[in-house]
């Protein structure tokens, strides 16, 4: 079955350092979505990537979708304490939007 793995599982960074999380799938993905979940909160949609090789930026966040549409990455430049949380990639199953979530990367930012 479809599996979406994320690495690393945990990441501690000093404030101001960069952070990257990677999402890898065993199968080709129709699209990839990224969510952020703050501690005690719920997943909040960040971005959706659809095209092979697509790159999108949101301020300090850069999202990439691999050429083969099997992997994706989220890069945060100069982390801030507000970036703390767990970042999930997710992709629809089959032909409907039943999101299959990756294992998540929990980011801690040390002031």
């Amino acid at each position: 079955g479809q599996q979406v793995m994320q690495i690393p599982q945990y990441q501690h960074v000093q404030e101001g350092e960069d952070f990257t999380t990677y999402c890898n799938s065993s199968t080709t993905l129709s699209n990839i979505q990224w969510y952020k979940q703050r501690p005690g909160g719920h997943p909040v949609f960040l971005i959706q990537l659809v095209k092979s090789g697509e790159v999108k930026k949101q301020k300090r966040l850069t999202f990439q979708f691999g050429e083969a549409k099997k992997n994706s990455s989220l890069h945060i430049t100069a982390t801030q304490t507000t970036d703390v949380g767990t970042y999930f990639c997710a992709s629809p199953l089959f032909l409907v939007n039943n999101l299959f979530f990756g294992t998540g990367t929990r980011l801690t930012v040390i002031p």
Partner: protein
Amino acid sequence: DAGVTQSPTHLIKTRGQQVTLRCSPISGHKSVSWYQQVLGQGPQFIFQYYEKEERGRGNFPDRFSARQFPNYSSELNVNALLLGDSALYLCASSLTGATTDTQYFGPGTRLTVL
């Protein structure tokens, strides 16, 4: 505009009991999906409904059931609760449930089974 709302916020039940969780989607959204998030893991898909019809079902036992009402709100029912059902139950709404639709999550219902 209000986001996705869920009730109750927290719930404590004992093994064997039954529970009903409620969700109201964003106005104009016709699709509702339910997810279970166990502590430390990513959300797992349970059900998706669109226009009152079940569109998808995840790998959950028949103790889990759901329905969607004409106003697009939804209920998730879990019978014969087990300790392992303790989790955050998330509802997400989207316009049509298509694969490119953004899903907006509600704050969740935290269920504790004792």
